[in-house]
């Protein structure tokens, strides 16, 4: 875990999302499923964002502008600089035999990096609309379903599932595929185990998602 002030290199809109590229400076890009805390200009707390892509010397984040923090991030322009802390948490185990990436909505954010590291395994992505589905272009080998169809209705059996998406989606994936790896979300103030804000129930106890996760085994 390191903190650095990184230059914004690019900001490109993809459907309703924004792909923000920063120069990664001295920061290690980490593993797929890990995340960084990004300074959201003008806000008190940073925001957790999964690494979406990590080409040499860069880090890219795919961000959905849903509130004040993400809106501030999506308004960044090339030349701006923000403080970034990471990599943080535990990402996906990549020692899997028949990987299937499953993502829903902005939950696809960590999957391009996973896909790259796993050599473009099959992916199943669900979106609310064709517009949102534009982001599927970031992931090769992807089948896309649009609501009212849900990814969990189209999920083939017999795979090692690596999933990220809204909570109801993850719950259904967990039920269908008990040894899936699931990337969860929780509000985070610090991202490195200091605030105890991100507590979620893990094995019947409240534990810090930023320390134990965000990727957890389904069972």
């Amino acid at each position, binding site marked *: *875990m390191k*903190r650095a002030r990184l230059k914004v290199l690019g900001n490109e809109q993809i459907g309703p999302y924004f792909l923000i590229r920063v120069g990664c400076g001295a920061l290690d890009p980490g593993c797929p499923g890990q995340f960084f*805390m990004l*300074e959201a200009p003008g*806000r*008190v*707390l*940073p925001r957790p964002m999964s690494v979406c892509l990590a080409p040499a010397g860069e880090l890219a984040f795919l961000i959905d502008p849903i*509130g*004040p*923090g993400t809106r501030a991030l999506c308004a960044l322009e090339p030349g701006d600089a923000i*403080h970034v*802390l990471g990599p943080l948490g535990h990402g996906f185990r990549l020692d899997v035999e028949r990987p299937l990436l499953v993502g829903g909505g902005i939950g696809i954010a960590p999957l391009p990096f996973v896909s790259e590291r796993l050599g473009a395994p099959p992916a199943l992505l669900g979106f609310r609309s064709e517009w949102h589905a534009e982001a599927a272009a970031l992931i090769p080998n992807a089948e896309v379903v649009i609501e009212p169809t849900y990814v969990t209705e189209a999920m083939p059996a017999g795979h090692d599932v690596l999933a990220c998406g809204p909570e109801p989606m993850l719950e259904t994936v967990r039920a269908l595929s008990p040894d899936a790896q699931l990337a969860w979300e*929780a*509000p*985070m*103030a*610090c991202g*490195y*185990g*200091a*605030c*105890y*804000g*991100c*507590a*979620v129930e893990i094995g019947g*106890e*409240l534990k810090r998602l930023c*320390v134990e996760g965000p990727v957890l085994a389904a069972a």
Partner: protein
Amino acid sequence: MLLLNGSGCLDALIAPDVARALDAFVTKTITPLPRDGNAPVRIAETEHGMLNAIGLANPGREKFLDEVLPHLRELGFPLWVSVGGFAADEYAETCAALDDVTIELNLSCPNVDEAPESAAEIVGACRAATDLPLYAKLSPAAWDVADTARAVEAAGADGLSLVNTIRGLSLDERTLRPTLERGSGGYSGPALKPIALAAVYACARATTIPIVGMGGVRTGRDALELIAAGASAVALGTVLFSDPDAPLRVRTELDVERSARGFDSAHDARGIAHWTDAGQRADVHANVL
């Protein structure tokens, strides 16, 4: 000039490098029994601060003493243990079980339902139970915090920690329902700074014991202000969440600020907000920490 963390704002076992950059590490508040804390959502950002309703999540006294404290000791830096409870004897029992640490009595957590017993009574019970240094951590949610400060000094407190969070609430922008599951939470961060300064300033006049100032410190300048108001040490809370490098940065900034103002050490600036026009100190007599 000592730099600490605010209780509950750092875990030295998870982030030892952050703790090492401080002069001492303050634990999250320990209660007699283990507590999971409140149900999530437990944190929320506001425009100028944050809210938390962690609810004293902690492993409980026994597990803390047996499993956590030994690991903390291995790290080798000075320890402050924050002690909580729901009755004076609960506090006192934890104090009696501690050794070779400074104790901070959390008399002011806004995130539990039980009303606190009289602060002075708790301090008195703990004073009888231990010879360790005892700091009383007070809430700014009092008509006159200096009254409480005088009372805990009389009851045997060796120092004050000022301030804890104050109760606040935020609503979800879409649903207009409380963002925190618990409803309200403790308000900390930049918005708290003037409230913290007022408490430190008032208590520095009302008592003779040293004060750990905290509340909204982000920069060395903020730290210097608390020192000027009368603090002998400064603690970093919310700022650690956005900047784990804050200890070193704040210390460096503080050095620059105080030397630019002609002070040989931050300590020399202590209480200068109380100086009269004639340049003499007014009735501040806080001891050195």
